[in-house]
């Protein structure tokens, strides 16, 4: 019932989301520009690898890695955790619950609609990739580019599901936004956002294989620069996490809604 309604309403919701993104384009671009970390790391590591490669990474590898990280990060990030947290706190969630479509569909539409804008911002970075030494590192054959595309889609869904889950924790916790901070700290360390996981100590790499963070950023990046030894395994683990995290988000949400209604809101 709601599923059919949600699917039918999707095109309209996407159009509305697109219009919103365009209306708030300046804010969006400033937010995207705050993603400076890969660039700072790029400067640092290219300076380190100027004379001799640093372990298995030469200067060009670092350029390719961090530009790819910048692209994947900008394409896959969203702010749905803050949105949900705010709506629960302010009580505006009640309005959303009155609609005949599932709230997840609404959130999904809003954040899917932002992707074209994000892609537009990422375009110059892609161009830079092709004029710098990164050109010789990234994979360019169609099958592996397709794998990269699938992995970015998976990363997007995984980040989205994780953020919905964290946002929905606001049903139970007053300060769920500090959880976002904890999440981001773990993400920086274990996703390869700060440093390629290849350069991390072995045990951190092992831990990262079993956690979701790597599949949000490091996995796709490694596929693009041709460093993933087994792209199939990465994708399998990634989509398993997408399913698991999606289920977790749905369960937290279900339990939370019951509590929310119990308040009489």
């Amino acid at each position, binding site marked *: 019932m709601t599923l059919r309604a949600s699917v039918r309403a999707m095109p309209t919701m996407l159009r509305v989301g697109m219009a919103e993104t365009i209306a708030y384009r*300046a*804010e969006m671009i*400033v*937010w995207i*520009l*705050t*993603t*400076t*970390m890969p660039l*700072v*790391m790029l*400067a*640092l590591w290219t*300076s*380190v690898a100027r004379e001799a490669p*640093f*372990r298995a990474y030469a200067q060009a590898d670092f350029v390719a890695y961090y530009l790819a990280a910048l692209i994947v990060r900008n394409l896959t990030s969203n702010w749905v955790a803050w949105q949900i947290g705010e709506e629960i706190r302010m009580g505006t969630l009640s309005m959303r619950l009155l609609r005949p479509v599932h709230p997840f569909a609404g959130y999904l539409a809003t954040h899917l609609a932002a992707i074209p804008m994000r892609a537009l911002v990422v375009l110059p970075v892609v161009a830079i990739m092709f004029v710098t030494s990164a050109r010789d590192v990234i994979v360019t054959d169609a099958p592996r580019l397709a794998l990269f595309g699938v992995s970015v889609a998976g990363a997007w869904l995984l980040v989205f599901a994780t953020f919905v889950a964290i946002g929905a924790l606001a049903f139970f916790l007053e*300060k769920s936004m*500090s959880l976002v*901070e*904890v999440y981001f*700290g773990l993400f*920086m*360390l274990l996703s390869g956002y*700060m*440093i390629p996981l290849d*350069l*991390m*100590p072995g045990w951190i790499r092992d831990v990262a294989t079993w956690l979701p963070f790597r599949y949000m950023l490091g996995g796709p990046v490694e596929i693009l620069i041709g460093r993933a030894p087994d792209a199939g395994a990465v994708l399998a683990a990634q989509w398993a996490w997408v399913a698991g995290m999606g289920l977790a988000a749905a369960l937290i949400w279900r339990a939370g809604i019951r509590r929310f209604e119990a308040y009489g809101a």
Partner: protein
Amino acid sequence: MRLTYYLRLLWVSIKTSALTSMQYRADFVVQGLMSLVWTALALVPLLILYDHQQAVAGWDFGPALVVMGLFVIMRGVLEGAINPSLIAVVERIRSGSFDYTLLKPADAQFLVSTTKFEPWRVVDLLTGVGLIIYAFVRIGHAPGLGDLAAGALLVATAIAVMYSLWILIIAAAFWVVRLDNLTFLLGAIFDAARWPIQIFPAVWRLIFTFVIPLALMTSYPAMAVLGRLDATTVLACVGGAAGFFVLSRAIWTLAIRSYTSASS
């Protein structure tokens, strides 16, 4: 006399902030812990880098750690004493309640800058100092008294520069109202200051020295403490910062004059 008046105002404001934050003691502990974790995270690249390599762009592990320590201190100053006030002010300009600030019988820039403090950021200052002390233990000798004095002078300059930069942003908020995310942008750029300025390519070195003077905030004070900076450069830094401070004050005064309130 005016000075004691303003010092008293400052004291009242700090006391109010401390009292407010004492109501949320659990928060105090959690935030302090979080800031320790962030500092530890920031050390990861440094450790991985120097585990494998002796020096980068002329910086060994010890000196690079001094820069990191100064970064943690400056981040504490920024997040604890500068940002909270200024974010509050942007909100007031938008809502129109900034008029009440202007009506008060004290300098508006002073009131604006001392609205709110976050006392738990003291954790950052202590961590930063701890890092610098550890760095000097690693280096093997204590800094000379003269170098220490020069370093302290440059930290003061750094705070002045940082404050002036943020005041400029707020002044801009009088013309273009939606600016709070610009402070986030500058905060993100400030992140680059955790690395010695010499590691950046030449163009960025120029930008980070003269346009967004990140070098003045961490690298130069560090070089001063390490005894790598000559007296002329120290004086040039102080002179430049003083000029910047005066300029930001002038632009603030100009901006206040063009303020027309939100309601009318």
